[in-house]
């Protein structure tokens, strides 16, 4: 699409208000979705909840292929399809809703930097654990990833994805890392986040921003997903203020939502171990 056409479409998007039937697409929650995709999806859901924009979650086995960028989640609003948290934040901003307007320039710089930290370290660590750690790959990832498809397609798709992710890990220099080093990095990242959060309710004091949504998405998923070992969630549990942060956001933005939508509540409680 040329630049002029894109600008025109953006203007159109801005003109329309948020519809009632906005949908967020992700993979099947019970059987198929993996740790990293679940984290990204939860981050977007949290962000939209914080902006008070209603969205319903639709689970499809081929969500990854429907997405324009190949990554989940993506939202279908009106006749526009936008994927990944960054573009979704901008799209929502074009419609007039923004969480970070009240921040000054330095704070905006810090917010962007911390979001990149989460993407760079937490997301990559999740991908590493899912696709490069042999035990996890065999016991969890392969069975889950191809579960909606018949044999041999499920094995082929899983191997294809694994090969793609491993090449990417090599390109960014994570292929040579051992599991201990990756957990070390996760610990460093959590320490940095914990430091930044301190005793405040949100990262930028009183109001939540997209950074809070992103951190919540990843940390909550890590804390509540059962893997072959508990080491990853133990790293996060070391930091009390981060677990309290997750609990606070869950209670504030997802409790009410869960009461309306009993399907998601049941699904989430199947994995939940946070509120023990």
């Amino acid at each position, binding site marked *: 699409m040329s630049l002029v056409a894109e600008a025109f479409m953006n203007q159109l998007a801005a003109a329309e208000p948020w519809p009632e039937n906005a949908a967020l697409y992700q993979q099947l929650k019970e059987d198929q979705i993996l740790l990293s995709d679940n984290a990204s999806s939860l981050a977007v859901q949290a962000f939209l909840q914080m902006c008070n924009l209603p969205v319903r979650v639709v689970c499809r086995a081929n969500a990854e292929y429907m997405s324009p960028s190949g990554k989940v989640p993506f939202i279908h609003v009106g006749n526009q399809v936008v994927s990944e948290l960054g573009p979704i934040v901008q799209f929502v901003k074009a419609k007039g809703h923004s969480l970070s307007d009240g921040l000054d320039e330095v704070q905006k710089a810090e917010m962007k930097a911390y979001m990149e930290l989460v993407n760079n370290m937490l997301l990559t660590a999740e991908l590493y654990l899912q696709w490069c750690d042999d035990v996890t790959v065999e016991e969890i990832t392969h069975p889950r990833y191809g579960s909606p498809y018949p044999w041999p397609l499920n094995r082929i798709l899983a191997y294809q994805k694994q090969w793609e992710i491993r090449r*990417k890990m090599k390109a960014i220099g994570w292929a040579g890392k051992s599991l201990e080093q990756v957990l070390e990095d996760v610990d460093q990242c959590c320490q*940095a986040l914990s430091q930044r959060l301190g005793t405040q309710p949100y990262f930028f004091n009183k109001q939540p921003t997209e950074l809070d949504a992103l951190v919540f998405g990843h940390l909550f998923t890590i804390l509540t997903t059962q893997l072959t070992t508990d080491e990853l969630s133990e790293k996060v549990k070391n930091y009390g203020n981060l677990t309290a942060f997750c609990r606070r956001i869950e209670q504030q933005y997802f409790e009410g939502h869960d009461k309306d939508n009993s399907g998601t509540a049941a699904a989430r409680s199947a994995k939940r171990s946070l509120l023990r």
Partner: protein
Amino acid sequence: MAAPMELFCWAGGWGLPSVDPDCLAVLTYARFTGAPLKVHRVSSPWRSPSGRLPALKTRDEGTISKTQQIITHLRKQKYNADYDLSATQGADTLAFVSLLEEKLLPVLIHTFWVDAKNYVEHTRKWYAETIPFPLNFFLPNCMHKQHVERLQLMWGDGYMEDEEKLEKELYRDARECLTLLSQRLGSQKFFFGDSPASLDAFVFSCLAPLLKAKLPNGKLQQHLKSLQNLCNYCTSILSLYFPWDGGDPPASAPRVGGAEGGDAEEDPHKRRNQLLSVLVGLAAMLGYAFLSGIVSIQRGAVGPAGRQPIALEEEEEEEEE
């Protein structure tokens, strides 16, 4: 007192002590902390002990090749630039380094190595002139391919093929990153007050090549030049920590001089190459002559005996025919 460790890094150019961002980061960090390093500025990775640059040769732990690991090693040896930072500042360092690595560094690599005009007219030319014969024929191309593949894996095929999309989204993010850095720096001397930290080393290593290189296609460069505080920041670090090998070094190692005064050195090399090729040609012809028996040397009487083998040869040839 530890014996000086040896650091191998790419040679300097364009007014910088080293042209490669990774090498520059390590060099700058070492200068900030005053670590005693013996720096070898080499013009090809084959000269380094591990085959890659930068490489740190230590006494106890062999050779370390990754930038982050080198800096960690220096920290363990008590050369720590982040000693005075508070925990929050340490967290900010991690965050901003991630921002640089995700948003700015890939676009920087693209500007220098993938963008057609820049690569052909500037980067490849410099590397081909610096790297010695015969590596300079294939090594720059090799590096170019490696970088293209890396970017392809990071960004996906969609961006690499669509120039407009690349320009619009990724370069825009890079420009935003530069603006954010400028806002965070403000009017301070370094990012965390008056003394430099590891974040300053990373930021400098990304910004300095972008600022100093004379790129033909320099949109990102222009944006950087419009951010006055970042330009001043780079020049002040250069003048404070690299005062003598920032510009054209007249009296320093001949290798570095050779890289920049390439014209002066070209003539003697050319003559030497011509002489070599003539000698090789002569040796080949003589060798063939001896081996096929057209000419042969016999010990003893020179005159008549010399003619006999030739006569014999002619007979043999007649017989063969």
